[in-house]
């Protein structure tokens, strides 16, 4: 390979790596003064419902299809080898992510379609006032002192509803920030609560695919209550969490495996801090967290340290 091509390839490679860098997710932080500020001054809950796309759906890409797409990209690159390095560079730039990109585009279109029924259902409600009232009520229920006058903290909440892969439950995604009276942030976190199933029991208790507004709002209210409990816990405990571990659970027939730090959990919810800093809460029991000693007793020997 001539140095000219090598340099060009290196430049493109670096450029590609640069292009692939995603924007940094918002960092969680928890000022020790946050709790004192709430206790001293109280908080005014301010819910900012997004003007569009309040309801979206998660993209579903299964591992097997993703791998096939990746192989397709690889095949395109292999086929382009005859065109020389310059040709390969162009094709590679287009196709390194091409298989995955096509897959993602299709999955995004599908997700948009899947989110429409629920978006239409709750879009017909006076959502701003309803959510404002519910979050305010939930924050008081979680033990966060409400504001009594204008000198108070501002609890800014930006909610989003994201349908889960099973399309029968959703994730209430809250971007939460506590600001002091001067507007300086004392606490910032992403709190995600996975809902119970919102599917209604149709005739003969068979899911007929239709959505029931009352059922959906009831499930949403449950998520809001849990979100505020998680927030109160996170502020009170200063974000102290357990050791990082693999968390496994089955929710609505879907197996979830995620790495995170367990937080103390109550009310049938399991709470944990994920690797990206978000605090998640799911209405599940974890698999295999309490039975390791029992397992080793059954097996007849303690596990070794590899």
């Amino acid at each position: 390979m001539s140095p000219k091509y090598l340099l060009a390839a290196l430049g493109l490679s670096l450029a590609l790596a640069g292009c692939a860098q995603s924007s940094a997710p918002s960092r969680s932080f928890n000022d020790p003064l946050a709790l004192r500020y709430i206790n001293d001054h109280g908080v005014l809950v301010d819910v900012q419902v997004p003007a569009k796309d309040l309801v979206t759906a998660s993209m579903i890409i299964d591992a097997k299809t993703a791998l096939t797409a990746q192989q397709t990209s690889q095949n395109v690159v292999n086929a382009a080898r005859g065109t020389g390095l310059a040709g390969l560079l162009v094709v590679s730039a287009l196709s390194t992510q091409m298989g995955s990109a096509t897959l993602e585009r299709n999955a995004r279109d599908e997700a948009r379609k899947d989110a429409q029924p629920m978006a239409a259902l709750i879009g017909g409600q006076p959502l701003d006032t309803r959510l404002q009232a519910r979050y305010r009520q939930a924050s008081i229920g979680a033990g966060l002192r409400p504001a009594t006058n204008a000198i108070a903290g501002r609890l800014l909440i930006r909610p989003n509803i994201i349908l889960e892969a099973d399309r029968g439950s959703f994730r209430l995604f809250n971007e939460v920030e506590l600001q002091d009276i001067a507007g300086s942030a004392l606490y910032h976190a992403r709190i995600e609560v996975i809902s119970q199933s919102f599917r209604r029991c149709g005739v003969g208790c068979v899911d007929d695919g239709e959505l029931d507004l009352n059922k959906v709002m009831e499930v949403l209210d449950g998520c809001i209550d849990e979100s505020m409990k998680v927030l109160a816990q996170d502020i009170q405990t200063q974000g102290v969490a357990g050791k990082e571990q693999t968390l496994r659970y089955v929710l609505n027939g879907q197996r979830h495996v995620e790495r995170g730090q367990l937080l103390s959990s109550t009310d049938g919810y399991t709470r944990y801090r994920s690797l990206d800093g978000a605090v998640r809460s799911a209405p599940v029991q974890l698999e295999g967290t309490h039975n390791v000693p029992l397992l080793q007793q059954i097996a007849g020997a303690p596990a070794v340290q590899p």
Partner: protein
Amino acid sequence: MLLRTARHCLALVLLFATLSGCSSFVQKPIDLDAQFWNDKSPVIGVALSPLPPPQLALIGNQGLLELAINKGINSKLSDQVSAWELHDLETLPDEVVASLKAKGLNAKRIPDLIDLTKFKETEKREGYLARNISELQSRYGVDRVLLISYTTTGAFRSYYSVVPTSVPTPQVGGIGMLVDPKDSRLVWYKPFAVVQPAQGEWDQPGYSNLSNAFYQAVDGSRQQVLSAFNK
């Protein structure tokens, strides 16, 4: 003349050695048969072999200089991959023992890691482990050895020269085998491999999606091993 003949002989020997190397067989998977489940008397010792540390494999068509460049570009990712943990696999033999006991079989955990490379190599034969592990029978008081051997952990990324042709993808692979230590006969042989692409962007700060995908791959491999005994 003599020198030329000798040179031709040497070439033939080399060619033969190469060809015989190429023709070495690949052991096919062997399923557990009904006899295994019906015969409750043999003591089955379940063990794990030493786990290979997770590493980033840069695969594809690269020269030495290009490989060095690619390693440099991926050094941060490489460090992250090396930091991934394999503790989840430590309890896998215990879970296999529990599954076997639930089926009424006589199983126990072998407390040590079994490194097959430490055992004497024997002739390669279809249906037999090419190592003499007979000493395990008396050492642990077992009639069968069920060994879970991980051969690959980490992630791979393919390159053509210095051009990446794939995103980094976590992978975990290995072999599960049940061996009769008396004669090294394979009663069960199951290679497993899980390739788990990251869901979403792979290059987030801290590589959270990629790390999650790795732990999902580890979990997937556990499920593959356990599925053989949970039928």
